[in-house]
């Protein structure tokens, strides 16, 4: 099995699909789900903060600011 990609590794110009959220804090997980990070959703990277973190991702037609650390439990596959 190859390296498992997580949302914290998303790169500029990539389009990724969410597979599932593995573990992590319960409240954090619920919050990510509530904001639309569910199985199958497509995500692109919109921008990175000037200091390298947090990142701004685009999904479901809107933009979400997240810290890389908070999305390192979100397993993804790179589509493009």
């Amino acid at each position, binding site marked *: 099995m190859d390296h498992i990609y997580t949302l914290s590794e998303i790169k500029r110009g990539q389009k990724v699909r969410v597979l599932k959220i593995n573990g992590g804090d319960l*409240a954090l997980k619920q919050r990510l789900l*509530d904001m639309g990070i569910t199985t199958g959703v497509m995500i692109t990277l919109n*921008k990175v*903060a*000037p*200091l390298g973190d947090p990142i701004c991702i685009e999904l479901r*037609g*809107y933009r*979400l*600011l997240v810290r890389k650390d908070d999305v390192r439990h979100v397993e993804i596959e790179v589509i493009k």
Partner: protein
Amino acid sequence: MRIALIGNQNSGKTSLFNVLTGNNQKVGNWPGVTIERKVGLLRTTTHEVIDLPGIYSLSPFSPEETIVRRFLLEEHVDLIINIVDSTAIERSLYLTTQLYDFKIPMIVALNMSDLALEQGIRIDIDKLQSLLKLPVVPVSALKRTGIKEMINLIKEVTLDEPEYPAIYQGALNEEIAKLSEKITLKERLFIACKLLEGDRNFPIHLVLNVDDSITKLTNEYQNDIPQIVADQRYQFIERVRDLSVSSRENPKTLTDKIDRIILNKYLAIPIFILIMFSVYFLAAGPVGGYLTSLIESLFVWINVQFSGFLVDVGASPWAISLLVDGVLTGVGSILNFVPQLVILFLLIALLEASGYMSRIAFFFDRIFRKAGLSGKALIPFIIGSGCSVPAIMATRTINDENEKRLTVLLTPFIPCSAKLPIITLFAGYFFKDNVGIVSASLYFLAVIIILGTALVMKRFIYKGTYSPFIQELPTYKAPNLQYVVRSTFEKTWAFMTRAGSIIFLASITIWLLLSFNWQFQYGVAIDQSILSDVGRLFSWLFYPFLGTNSWAAGVSIIQGLVAKEQVITSLSIIAGLSDGAASHTIFTSPLFTFFTPASAYAFMAFNLFSAPCFGAIGAMHKEFGSAKKMLKAVLIQTTVAFLIATLIFQFGRLLEVIL
């Protein structure tokens, strides 16, 4: 009829509430929290409209979500108006699918439909209505379109128990149905679903044993239930989207273009500094300064006219002195600053309404995080530039207890509006050519002190746990002028009322203490007055950063506890009484000629960063929940202020000698 207004943050909910209710509003707080509770009457009706806090979900993890949950579970609601942001329709409908479970009649207000059209999003309203099985009205709260239709629809709506589309599928649906049969309440679906998700925040009689069902579902889906539930909700929404919404791929919006500059890797922080600098430069610098000098000369004129009038009607000298040297000088010294505050409040409200604030959180989060704070702490800091009291109360939205305490401790370091007079007065006199730079420098000093204190405190006293930063990036909006004007007016009015109440009483008190000695003889020389003796008790404390034992400066600093602007009031009254003929500039009074630029800057710094006023200390007490913790925090603040002021003074004096 009771109508609940529910929607996401930044969905335009408050604007819609204002348009729907006009000026029939009552503002209070939700029990136990300081989140605003607004109730109003729907225009042309007697229907009550309640503005609920902006939320994304009904999970029990944030105070806002808890409020809305409890409200829906415990209070009677006839109708829900669910505001859906057309530009983020999928995420907005997620909340709608949760509201379904309450079986309350609901109308969807499709807000910002004009903005969505600009972004190439087309929504088939009829299709959406039939798929969601509820009425959908396109509105624009900003442009006030669709409001009449909305009100008419509310008047005609039928209040029977609605039939909503089925969200849950397969095994999950079966388990929820089985469980909800055991619950007799109308909101049984909601409770059943939440119980399966592992949520136990319900009255004990509602908490049924669901362990078997949870194991069964987890095995069947090979996934945990919160994820299954969220997946199914979004699957429903995706079906609705596919049938009723069409959008162009990745249109370049105005927000993108602006953000390319504002959030640029190299420009973001310089632009932020420039914006904050301009705000304080406009407020405290030449523009505000000029307006303040106009008001000042008006007060001088009133002073002369009024004392002339009092002499003419034969008032006794002590009465004239009380009214002119005490009350008028004291209250006037504060009202002078109203124009500057109007500018400050106006600019901050504009920034708040434009969407820039969440961008600040975005690019400063990394720095904040190092100091043990999340981007959420930024909100109290920004509110704190108006007044520390609501800012301290706003820390309640921070979930982690230690992070909250740390934020409460740090919030008063932000120069509040009452401290602005101190800054402008001293900077204006001692740094005439660089007023803007000097005032702005104090704000940056505040930021440095906040981060430095946070770093130290995190290590030793408030060891925080981690809290995540997950936040929507809203699109830029043309600021809602109604909101901006209202917010500016409310804050200015609060400042003026304080001048008419607290400052008024304090002015009379210090006039009395300055005009009498311990034998209660009137008309003694000012340095034999009761107040001067009180000041001498403390003045040595301030020697390290003033370079002299000044009772007059000492008592003024202490009065900052009553209200920070009282420092200026006190200086004005003392100066006025000391040279008799009231020259109207504080610093020509023999009592205050000792001030040099170095001690002036140190004096400002000490007043800005030491213990806040009693109002803010009270708020701190409430948030800490213990007098001991509150005292500890006040002591930390004052120690930091003392160290900084002394450092500035000693270093500044050295510079003065060299130059």
